[in-house]
């Protein structure tokens, strides 16, 4: 295969390819998962009128749903033998087992992880970060980003 490579093709300057510092193999791998779930924003800490004032239509009694887009960003070293920060298939398996199967087509309010916190998307970000941070096959969890709709999204970096 290398025989068919034309050395004078665009971008073939060798100093372009090798003139950067060592330790440059750290990169980020991102993957997006779809989770459809329902929720209702309501806290027993506030009276009914204040819940209504704070949460608006998100406080409607029987809840509503979203197609959440959950983005997982993994930081790590690119393994020269695979070219990968993390193997996509293994990452998918972990995220599906811990997050997608748990929340997809479920009511977030009924999950024990939301027994003591309101299932806002901010809190969903933090909960997902907590479920994944020690579950990665390799690398570190850089952030979890959750898009609730096309126009609003939230990110949590573990701090």
């Amino acid at each position: 295969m290398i025989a068919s490579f034309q050395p004078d093709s665009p971008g073939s300057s060798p100093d372009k390819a090798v003139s950067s510092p060592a330790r440059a193999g750290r990169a980020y791998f991102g993957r997006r998962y779809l989770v459809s779930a329902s929720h209702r924003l309501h806290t027993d800490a506030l009276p009914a009128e204040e819940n209504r004032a704070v949460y608006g239509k998100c406080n409607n009694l029987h809840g509503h749903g979203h197609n959440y887009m959950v983005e997982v960003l993994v930081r790590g070293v690119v393994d020269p033998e695979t070219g990968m920060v993390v193997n996509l298939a293994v990452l998918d398996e972990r995220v599906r087992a811990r997050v997608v199967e748990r929340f997809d087509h479920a009511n977030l309010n009924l999950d024990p992880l939301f027994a003591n916190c309101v299932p806002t998307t901010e809190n969903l970000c933090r909960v997902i970060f907590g479920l994944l941070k020690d579950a990665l096959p390799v690398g570190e969890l850089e952030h979890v980003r959750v898009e609730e709709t096309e126009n609003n999204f939230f990110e949590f970096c573990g701090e």
Partner: protein
Amino acid sequence: MVYLTRRATFSASHYYWNPAWTAEKNEQVFGRCANRNGHGHNYTLEVTVAGEVDPVTGFVVDLKWLKGVIEREVLDAWDHHHLNLDVAEFAAPEFAAPELAPATGVGLIPTTENLAITAWRRLEPAISAAAAEAAAKGASGGARLSRVRVYETPEIFAEYRGGL
């Protein structure tokens, strides 16, 4: 400091294969990406530069110029090409950064991670040269490369922010 991102798309084919491994191991690690006849994607490349806003133009950098840099340094070589066969860093070991290449002396495996790093290495010299030129003239403007993100599909991407 303001961050400015230019997005571009390219279509290319590739496969993943480490010649030091057996066919079985390649298939086990890389799955369908190991099919030797290759497959392709519509990639999206996002290039983010960071700099101060020039008070005269209101620009961090001229987007037209940045578009040209991306086309010359990356798209001309990658768009509608086979990454393993046509692109220097993936086709031939002498063009592959040694710390990123497999021990067997082949080019980089054209994963999304390595595309992000390789795009950075192609873009960074042109962007830093322009910043140095602006500084030498005492002009404001001129930005540094801050982030390169490559989407292989809308759901899969890799990002590089320079040596960490």
